[in-house]
């Protein structure tokens, strides 16, 4: 077997380099919740280059480490689909539990932590063997899911119970709970895993939590001129790798807040499309893309200029976004 492989591999490489001269450009994958499709955006030209049919109600999407696979929560099919990013074919399905909404891949590149919104469960799946390893009881409507870069801790948010559930990734037990304001939606760890940021959509706040002390060290609130405070509803959070900035998507307020991640000062509010939820950087972190559900488009933020430079029309109700270099 081993002797057969290298020439075959070489053939494949030659083949793909011949016929895909544009493959250098990063591609953003956007899940369209109400179209059951993914829109693929070329980040050089900022144009939709392909639309792919996937399972029903695609929401959370994430790549494996080498970007060869894309995991897709097909919520209404009660499964996580595995797409081969070379061929764009669905090559498998993972047993995800019912109504998977968001998930996070453990740094081991193997274990997926999936929030089952309808079942008040977090399901841990071994993506290699396609088996369920554990199901963990959490609060009502689990949604946000993140695994620490350190690998020892997973955080799940339950929307109706308004809690952050701390899950020990070795024992798969809830070891701690943090009550936050109404409808926590999303969790994002800092690069070193020492802190995480968690948004509360209806509460209108974002908390920054210190992992070792398990204490909330900051509660952020947002104020936009001309927008009623109740309509400022934080969902997605993204942190730059250099530790300088945090971006917070403010839902129906149609703005993304730019926060100094060291002082926690809100620096600016950038106007984007309608009902902004999730975000992703390009690999160089010079661009930030936001999914705008109601306007059905993606806003492109130039991170250096801190300006919104483009919007790109995608399918109906864009939900999640992930970028492949």
């Amino acid at each position: 077997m081993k002797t057969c492989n290298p020439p075959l591999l070489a053939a494949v490489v030659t083949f793909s380099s011949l016929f895909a001269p544009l493959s250098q450009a990063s591609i953003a994958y956007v899940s369209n919740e109400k179209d059951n499709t993914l829109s693929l955006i070329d980040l050089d030209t900022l144009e939709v280059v392909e639309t792919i049919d996937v399972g029903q109600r695609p929401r959370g999407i994430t790549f494996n480490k080498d970007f060869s696979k894309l995991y897709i929560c097909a919520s209404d099919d009660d499964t996580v689909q595995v797409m081969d990013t070379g061929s764009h074919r669905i090559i498998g399905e993972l047993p995800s539990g019912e109504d998977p909404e968001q998930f996070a891949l453990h740094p081991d590149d193997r274990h997926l932590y999936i929030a089952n919104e309808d079942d008040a469960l977090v399901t841990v799946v071994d993506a290699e063997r396609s088996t369920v390893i554990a199901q963990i009881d959490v609060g009502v409507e689990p949604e946000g899911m993140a695994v620490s870069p350190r690998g020892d801790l997973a955080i799940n948010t339950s929307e109706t119970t308004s809690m952050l559930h701390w899950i020990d990734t070795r024992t798969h037990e809830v070891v701690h709970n943090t009550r936050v304001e109404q409808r926590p939606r999303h969790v994002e760890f800092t690069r070193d895993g020492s802190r995480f940021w968690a948004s509360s959509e209806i509460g209108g706040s974002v908390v920054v939590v210190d992992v070792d002390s398990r204490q909330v060290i900051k509660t952020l609130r947002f104020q936009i001129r001309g927008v009623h405070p109740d309509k400022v509803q934080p969902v997605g959070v993204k942190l730059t790798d250099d530790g300088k900035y945090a971006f917070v998507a403010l839902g129906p307020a149609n703005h993304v807040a730019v926060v100094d991640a060291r002082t926690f000062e809100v620096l600016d509010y950038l106007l984007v499309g309608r009902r902004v939820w999730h975000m992703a950087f390009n690999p160089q972190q010079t661009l930030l893309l936001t999914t705008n559900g109601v306007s059905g488009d993606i806003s492109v933020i130039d991170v250096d200029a801190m300006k919104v430079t483009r919007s790109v029309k995608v399918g109906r109700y864009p939900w999640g976004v992930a970028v492949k270099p």
Partner: protein
Amino acid sequence: MQQKGQSTASAKGSVLLCLLSCAILLFAPWSAAENAALRVQVGYLELLEEQPPLLSNVLPEPRDRGLQGARLGIADNNAGGRFLGQQFELLNFRSDSPNALIERLDQWVSAGVSVVVANLPAPLLSDLAQRYSTEQLLLFNAGSADNALRSQQCLANVLHTLPSRAMLTDALGQWLTQKKLRRWLVVEGARPADQEYVQSLQRTAQRYGSKIVARKRWRFDSDLRRSAQREVPLFTQAGDYDAVVVADELGDFGEFLLYNTWLPRPVVGTQGLTPVAWHRVVEQWGAAQLQRRFDRQAGRWMSSVDYAAWAAVRSVGEAVAAVGQTDAGTLRQHLLSDGFQLGGFKGRKLSYRPWNGQLRQPIALVHPRALVSQSPQEGFLHPQNELDTLGFDRPESQCQDLLAGARR
């Protein structure tokens, strides 16, 4: 044990170990519940009333309207409560006898129950409320839309999770204003509830500068199912109007007005385009999940009264989680304060008006298969909270500051 043979002891030991661990596994959830630091009993009281015969009776009303909402609220509370050592339990009593309800409530209160969800008509609710102080009992009104409860009666120990009629008609009035449909033909039933709906419409028309060009009372005793196409056009001749507004709360004749009016105008109100607290067509703002949970539990659609009962029980859950107490006075204090917020699947945080205890909430405008709009409509402004453009705002209500009342 130690004196017995070596081999059997080790075998027995492993069996015992297994038994022990199995027992721990089996009883862990049970003992956690048993050891719950805080057990909260929530009562649910409903007066079962006989429905009069109705013309449009094709789709019967469910018999457990309200109760199923309270049950779901308890389930939701417990799902979070187990992480906080809090356990919620529903006590349920439904009867066609007001006296039996009063008796049961007395028993509950003497047994230490401090929170009760009431699905009762206004007079009975008012009677019950006045038997207890704010420290003894906190009642949630999930069954009566009565305007006087929110504007004149000001029961200090009652919070209202069901919208008042005024909130519903204001929600409708804002939409009609937005659409520039300002001249209304009101078609009303003769029942007291229909008349209260009309009074509420009159108040709304005045607020938004709309005009009721004519009021027509439905008096026909024929079977409309056969003759609506002939009768209704004649009945709805009343000069020019922009919309037909129906006041027929029980659904006797209203359904037959649609597509049969003399002028081709939209039918709105208790039929046609209807303002409601909740309906199956609401699916935004995460509502799809609530709808699915309810459907799974009850096997039917969630109604406005179910929603009001759910919101009441969930309010208790949030308040107990926040203050760690279960007595009526402390819960009420927290629920009426600025610190309270409830995620209610309506796109905004919900809170209670401190002057009359009404739960602020957006109102959905629906037809049977779709959500048409949600009020407050854009452009209806308010200095504090746009949700207070619906129903009785502080200056319009004779009720003033329930918290101050409690301290007295």
